[in-house]
């Protein structure tokens, strides 16, 4: 019996045999990682993703779902194992630049993005005299290649947002916006009943449907892109969107009628221009993650321009 003190899981001998099997399968040995070190890595992952009093079955399920071979490679790289780095570079060097190019869509930006990630992966920053490699945070939940994609995408998004904060005057003059007058404050004609009825209808949506709506109507994603993200056919997304839009409209109208509006009034209220709506700009600004960072979020940007 192995007692995992940190995670609070007491492993039976059956679990020990699972860990041993995973160790053998991972090929961690050839990168100089011992069984004990490997178990520590797995416990660390278990601590991160499992509840404190989780059952052994859950732990077993999690561990068996890990990509142990790629986990061993990443952790060996993080420890500075040369063999591991050689394997990593053979497998992912070219791929990393391809992914960066796919994300940044421009060669020099892609190279810069990939190089910065290489630096993070190698661990140029030191903590307590040790290199802190980003690969040490890989937990094997998804493929290593997928993880690299995600990390690159996150880095790209962060860079884009950082750059947006420092728009030069030259760029503004190129855009012809340096002397642009601020938008006049729109007249606020707000009927709280419309907002309440809409919020009520949206609150009843399952998160996946809300995700589809947001992706299509807010982010401007195509049906094909959403379908790829959810791994369904785009006709499925199309049908869902059609149904959702109809159902939402119906529910809001019904909510408005419950709030004392006639059908005609409710129909008219739904057609009110978004600029006439009161938007809580303070909350918007506080929500940094929802700031207008990306092209295609015109609605969001416009909403943020409204009066506070």
């Amino acid at each position, binding site marked *: 019996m192995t007692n995992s003190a940190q995670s609070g899981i007491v492993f039976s001998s059956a679990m020990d045999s699972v860990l041993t099997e995973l160790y053998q399968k991972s090929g961690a040995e050839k990168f100089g990682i011992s069984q004990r070190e490997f178990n520590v890595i797995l416990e660390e992952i278990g601590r991160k*993703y499992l509840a404190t009093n989780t059952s052994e079955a859950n732990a077993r399920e999690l561990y068996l779902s890990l990509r142990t071979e790629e986990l061993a490679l990443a952790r060996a790289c993080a420890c500075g194992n040369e063999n591991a780095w050689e394997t990593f570079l*053979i497998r992912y060097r070219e791929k990393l630049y391809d992914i960066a190019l796919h994300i940044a869509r421009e060669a020099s930006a892609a190279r810069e993005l990939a190089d910065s990630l290489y630096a993070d992966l190698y661990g140029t920053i030191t903590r307590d005299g040790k290199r802190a490699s980003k690969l040490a*945070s890989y937990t094997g939940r998804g493929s290593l290649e997928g993880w690299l*994609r995600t990390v690159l995408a996150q880095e790209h998004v962060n860079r884009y947002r950082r750059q947006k904060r420092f728009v030069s005057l030259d760029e503004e003059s190129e855009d012809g916006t340096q002397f642009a007058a601020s938008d006049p404050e729109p007249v606020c004609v707000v009927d709280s009943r419309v907002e309440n009825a809409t919020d009520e209808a949206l609150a009843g949506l399952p998160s996946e449907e809300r995700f589809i709506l*947001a992706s299509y109507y807010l982010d401007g994603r195509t049906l094909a892109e959403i379908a790829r993200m959810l791994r369904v056919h785009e006709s499925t997304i*199309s049908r869902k*969107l059609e149904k959702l839009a109809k159902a939402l409209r119906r529910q809001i109208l019904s909510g408005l009628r419950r709030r004392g509006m006639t059908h005609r009034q409710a129909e008219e209220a739904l057609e009110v221009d978004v600029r006439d709506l009161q*938007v809580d700009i303070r909350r918007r600004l506080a929500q940094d993650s929802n700031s207008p960072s990306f092209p295609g979020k015109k609605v969001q940007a416009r909403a943020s321009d409204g009066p506070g």
Partner: protein
Amino acid sequence: MLDLPKIVRVRLNSPSNPLGGHPDADLLTAFAEHSIGDCERAQVMQHLANCGDCREVIRLAQPQIENLIVRHSSGPIAWLSWPVLRWGTLAAFAVIVSVALLTKRHEKANLESRISTQVARSDQQITKLPETKLSSTLESKHPESKNMPASRTAGKTALQPSRRSQASYGAGIAGGVGSGPKNKLTGRAVFAIPSGGKSPPPSLFERKADREQKQVEKDSAPSAASETVTVEAEAAQITDMAEAIPGKAKEPQPKSQNGTAGGTIGGLVANSVPHANQPGREQMSLAKITTIPRWTVSSDGVLQRSLDGGATWETVPVEKNVIFRAVSVVADSVWAGAAGGALYHSADTGRSWTGIHPSAKGAMLTGDIVTIEFTDLQHGHLTTTNGETWLTPDGGQTWQKK
């Protein structure tokens, strides 16, 4: 697509619940690759529904579309795509029609040969043609025969015993279907059958007429062919009727004028029996085909096998968390390629699997395998997303990188 009211877009953009922290890269990756449990997936989905940044990250982290196109166009999963199914259905229909036509033609050829053999046999013994038959033939080919004396024409009505076989053949056709003299098919029973009595020996004129008839038949091969076709049409009708009225064809012919009639038509109908059994043979061969395992890779990268010709598919466990992208099958040998250069081989139709790690001159296969093609048990090649082609000449023992 229906447009959403603007108010809905605005409220959709304001998170209904506090976002909290963003999911880490591992969770987002696992979400994108569909390798997390339902509970965690629901949590991540809830975050994504409210977080535009994470939606953007998920979108950017999707594999390049070109790779997917290559995969879809080259992988076995492409067999299940709609255009392929559509064209496949058309092709299958064309094949069925052509097989039916060929079968029909084969039937016709069989009948034709039978009938021509019978006709040839009886022709050797013919001294006279039956009245209507010969007269119509002669009239069509030799108009001068119209002017024959009545006695000559009358003389033609006499049949030699040997000629009766042909007459009985006609009667056989007529009677074989179990219909009376008013039956449409009996219209063909125009061969006059004398009622008893000995037939006189062939006269000089008769011999001449016989020669003429032979000459006519030689000259009028097309008409003979058309005759055959007519008989075939009748035979087809007989077959159809025999099929439509099971057992009817086998009924004894009560009014048969000749003992051979039943036998002749019996032969004809019996001839159609194997064709009637044709579907049975097809079913057997279909059953054989459906027992051959079919392999595919599902859209979410799972290796699947069907033992019933594609009606149902079962997941073939190879290794956990491997996203398969291509499969190739030669006899019992199955090769399956996955993301990250993972290659597996089964020599026993998927019962046991061996991981293969191709390497050549220090280089390892690392790219996502998008196609595998084995021409036989030994020779095969695979291609990867990074444009590499790996070949093996010895069933995966050694590999060469192109």
